């Protein structure tokens, strides 16, 4: 009786190994089911979803105008002090002083892509970009100024 049980166990054990190996052989002969992406080679064809959180950018239109009023809502919403807004005072044609951004400093090295600044922005001036290859040789390059040179606030944005 003992020997019979032993042989039975050996047989079922071998069978389970063959069943598993069959799966391996199946994929060995079915190349089309392999979904591996050859990453650096397919860089040109990579498509990212619109919501992918890569880095914060400021939206500029064709006339080099943005919608940032310098209200610092994003600065307050950020958990890591990633954003620092330096404001200046512009003189309007009527002779009044008006607050505007001088520099929108963004520290990519501190950013955790939590999206809280984009949600907090009342004028949709910033958004998340789909870039993801952020490596640089010098750490200072990660500190970015998001408003483009000579850009100004779009008319009508308060």
């Amino acid at each position, binding site marked *: 009786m003992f020997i019979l049980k032993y042989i039975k166990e050996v047989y*079922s*054990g*071998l069978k*389970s*190994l063959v*069943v*598993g190996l*069959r*799966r*391996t052989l199946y994929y060995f002969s079915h190349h089309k089911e392999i*979904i591996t992406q050859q990453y650096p080679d397919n860089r040109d064809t990579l498509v*990212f*979803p619109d*919501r*992918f*959180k890569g880095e914060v950018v400021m939206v500029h239109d064709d006339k080099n105008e943005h919608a940032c009023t310098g209200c610092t809502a994003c600065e307050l*919403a*950020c*958990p890591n002090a990633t954003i620092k807004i330096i404001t200046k005072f512009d003189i309007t044609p009527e002779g009044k002083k008006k607050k505007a951004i001088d520099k929108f400093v963004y520290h990519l090295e501190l950013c*955790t*892509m*939590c*999206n*809280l600044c984009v*949600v907090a922005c009342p004028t949709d001036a910033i958004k*998340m970009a789909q870039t993801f290859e952020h490596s640089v040789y010098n750490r200072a390059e990660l500190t970015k100024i998001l408003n483009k040179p000579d850009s100004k606030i779009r008319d009508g944005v308060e």
Partner: protein
Amino acid sequence: MVEEIGSTADGNIILNVGPQHPATHGVLHLVITINGETIQKVEPHLGYIHRSIEKMCESLTYRQFIYVTSRMDYLSSHINNHACALCVEKGLQIEVPLRAQVIRVLMDELTRIASHELWWGAMAMDLGAFTPFFHAFREREAINDIMEETCGARLTMNYMVPGGVMQDIHPNFQKRVKEFIALFKSKVSEYNELVTGNIIFQNRMKGVGNLSAADAISFGCTGPTARGSGVSCDIRKLYPYEIYDTINFEEILETEGDSFARYMVRVREMSQSISIIEQLIDNIPEGDFQAKTKAVLKLPKGEFYQRVETARGDFGVYIVSEGGTTPYRIKFRSPGFSNLSALDHMARGSKLGDLVAMMGTLDLVIPDIDR
């Protein structure tokens, strides 16, 4: 504190596993006392990845601190964020719209599947089988793609905010989830063919790492670790949050209490999560995805506690508020820490080679233990 090197007076050898060891899945340091091949004592040393998250949270507002919890149990980051959001909502007494609740539960269950998939692959890899790891990641990749499309990130989503979810679901969400369900169902038989039925796997798992129901309770084990010993501890059933009390699902229980029972609990839980998703995916109600909240959240003075069921067990958030914009004190109850404490009890008297199998079935995520 024991000696970390050498041998003890009675001829036992002290062996270090980790902190840099592939089988510990992170920087876990185990000081093991062995007599020949037999384990006498296992002593985990923690602190290698301590980031003082609880202290950090004290300087962050109630909107900001949620993202930090994604960095604890990074495999169930959605569920961690969910617990924090629920706790803040409890304090503010915000009514979350039904649509947001359904989206949250869907995301939770997708996360649970993704977490168990990764565990399944890593578990088999611990025992020397490398192929299952890739098979598990193939299905997990499908979930990650869904997450990427709706939440914008693959691992640390920060999608749950107090009052609901950050953005509405992507228009493709329902279609993609249905595709995933079909994919998962066609592939789940592979899991049993490759690993569950395998004779080598069964011999290494059955009767190894026994944990009785009484011990599981006394060590504070929760989640699949305790359910493998027959302890009913599913927070979704016992203390239902969101819409879990209206969903039809069963709590998976195995009574053997060995490594194989814990393995089976997790494998069966994946199918259970799929059935929850199937019930909800066509019934996402219309409405707001976020309740109207004030710009600055201030919790009233008091103490608030909320527990949820993550992929590893009972995760609790305890907030003490002084009435300000930042919490006075935050405590996280992480399931991994309690589950790890049972390892010494499980491993005593068994062979050194089985330790990796036991550790695998505990499903340890070290940043969750250390915080």
